[in-house]
């Protein structure tokens, strides 16, 4: 059995969970074997929570987001686990069991769960006007009336801080700057009043002053629409500024999970510690950054061992390299997957 069974509800702040992911695995068949993009990920997000998911490229954070939307690109497949989503009506659906293109998921995707992406230009069609694209989404999910959709679109653009929205609706994506496009994407996502917003690195392509504007907008919208946000990023600074809870991912697994304060002030996993130490901070004087030796391995045909063992300076021979540590609650609501802190092992699947 899993050591963390059922314990990881996001109930730290008393709110009910809106989505509970349990032991989720997504695999991609490749020529050399199986690429385990996500390998047993569990976490849950409470209502109105700002949940951060942090990790470096290739750790599986984007695939996690894609599986919540059931948009994992082929040949990727959810091979195990559940994604229990508590919908507004009070019923619970396991998204992992739904047909990828069936009516049930389409009623949730874009409606109750919305998503914004890193590069807004590739999510917008270059040949349709902003207004048409926005209204299409609204008419699909909210109302069939064209006039009403137009009204909502105007309102939404106004809300996300686009001045002169009536004129801007006639324009095309290439007329917009990167920050403006991201605002349009946020308007589109918010137009259906989602209960969960997934933001996958929405500010990575933006300048720092524009990033500040967008972060501000996301935080404001969260309060206004009372929604939960899953914020995916590689930037520790953003996590510290806007999130309540954070999960650190490495090589398809969550290695540490807890409140933002726990993760930043009392990091327990060697990877989290090194990640924090290798990040230059503004206002801090260090002559040398700590770096993590080596690179992230490709998750194909890896031995059954802790994913970080090849780079870990605190490696315990005969433990870390032969078994996967379980994610264990070391302190209250602070979970760590490391043999340095607990000797329990993950069962072999």
């Amino acid at each position, binding site marked *: 059995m899993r050591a963390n069974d059922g314990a990881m509800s996001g109930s730290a702040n008393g709110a009910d969970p809106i989505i509970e992911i349990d032991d989720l695995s997504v695999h991609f068949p490749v020529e050399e074997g199986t690429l385990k993009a996500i390998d047993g990920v569990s976490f849950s997000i409470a209502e109105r929570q700002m949940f951060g998911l942090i990790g470096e490229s290739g750790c599986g954070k984007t695939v996690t987001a894609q599986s919540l939307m059931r948009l994992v690109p082929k040949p990727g497949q959810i091979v195990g686990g559940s994604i229990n989503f508590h919908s507004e009506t009070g019923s619970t659906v396991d998204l992992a069991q739904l047909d990828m293109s069936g009516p049930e998921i389409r009623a949730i995707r874009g409606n109750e769960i919305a998503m914004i992406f890193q590069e807004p230009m590739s999510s917008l069609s270059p040949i349709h006007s902003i207004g048409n694209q926005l209204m299409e989404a609204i008419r699909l999910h909210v109302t069939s009336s064209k006039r009403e959709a137009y009204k909502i679109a105007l309102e939404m653009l106004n809300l996300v801080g686009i001045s002169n929205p009536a004129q801007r609706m006639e324009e095309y994506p290439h007329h917009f700057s990167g920050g403006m496009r991201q605002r349009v994407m946020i308007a589109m996502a918010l137009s259906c009043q989602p209960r969960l917003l997934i933001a996958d690195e929405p500010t990575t392509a933006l300048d720092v002053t524009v990033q500040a504007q967008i972060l501000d907008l996301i935080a404001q919208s969260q309060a206004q629409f009372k929604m939960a946000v899953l914020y995916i990023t590689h930037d520790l600074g953003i996590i510290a500024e806007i999130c309540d809870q954070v999960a650190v991912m490495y090589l398809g697994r969550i290695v540490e999970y807890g409140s933002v304060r726990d993760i930043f002030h009392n990091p327990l996993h060697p990877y989290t510690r090194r990640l924090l130490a290798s990040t230059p901070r*503004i206002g801090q004087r260090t002559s040398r950054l700590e770096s993590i030796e080596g690179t992230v391995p490709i998750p194909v045909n890896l031995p059954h061992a802790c994913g970080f063992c090849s780079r870990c300076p605190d490696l315990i021979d005969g433990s870390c390299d032969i078994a996967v540590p379980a994610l264990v609650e070391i302190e209250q609501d602070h979970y760590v997957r490391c043999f340095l802190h607990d000797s329990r092992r993950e069962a072999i699947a």
Partner: protein
Amino acid sequence: MTEQMVLQVEGLKKFFPVERGFLRRVVGHVRAVDDVSLAIAAGETLGLVGESGSGKTTVGRCILRALKPTEGSIRFTYDGDQTVDMAQIDGRELRDLRRYANMIFQDPFHSLDPRWTVLDIVGEPLKLTNMASGKALEDRVAHLMDVVGLEVKHLRRYPHAFSGGQRQRIGVARALATNPRLIVADEPVSALDVSTQAQILNLLQDLQSEFGLSYLFIAHDLSVVEHISDRVAVMYVGKLVEVAKRDQLFFFPKHPYTEALLSAVPTPDPDVSKSRIILPGEIANPADPPSGCYFHPRCKYAQDICREETPLLREVEPGQWVSCHFADELDLVGAPTLA
């Protein structure tokens, strides 16, 4: 200044024509770099920060003469005491000088030819400058690989066999090949993950102290720039708005734009609370910049004079140059002081 200057740029301008219509009439100019002056001493790192479109990359490319500047001088000192104005030379003369100044690019995935081995890539500048060939060239490349922390046995591998961080090491080895004095590093770590980014930053610092290199370090990430730079220059729409020693600029900024930039950088510490300045609007269009101070439409301290007169870059404190009418009066907030 008593230190020996490697590079002294005076009044650098680079305008790109905007052409329109069948006859490609020039209807205006994009003032990508508009009167930039800066200097880099031997062994010094000058950080150049700015948002996209601010002209920081164009400055780097003009200095290395990948672009011909519209105006201005680029005095470059090499071989101890020889000085040349890079803006004035061309052809053969320029080619002979290329070995003294090199570039590291942003994207390690696109800046290396996939059909060339590491030996070809790192050896190319040596061939072009006739510095080595044959066995000597191979030895030199092997040595460089060792210096940048790559395994010498991978000499004949192709770029795809390396990770992002390793590829950037190849880029660094290529830049080092000809024993340059100056390296222009254009966003060298922005495509890398945090842990690899730290490896490359450490490598650049080690190489600097070993070979006495000067860096022009171009980046948009202020925390990276702060970490590696001795002095920092901030650009906004083709102009320098502030140039100062690192600590002056980060803790006691004198230009409102610097203040806003510093406040916008997220701090990886949940207990540091700070008031973030949200700048209204976006960076001005360098083809049609606003009147007066280019920053005035977004500046919360702007007065009438800012709309009318362009402020000049002047020395407000020793070593701190600022182009703001109110640099002496404003009390601006710097970066939070962390342990």
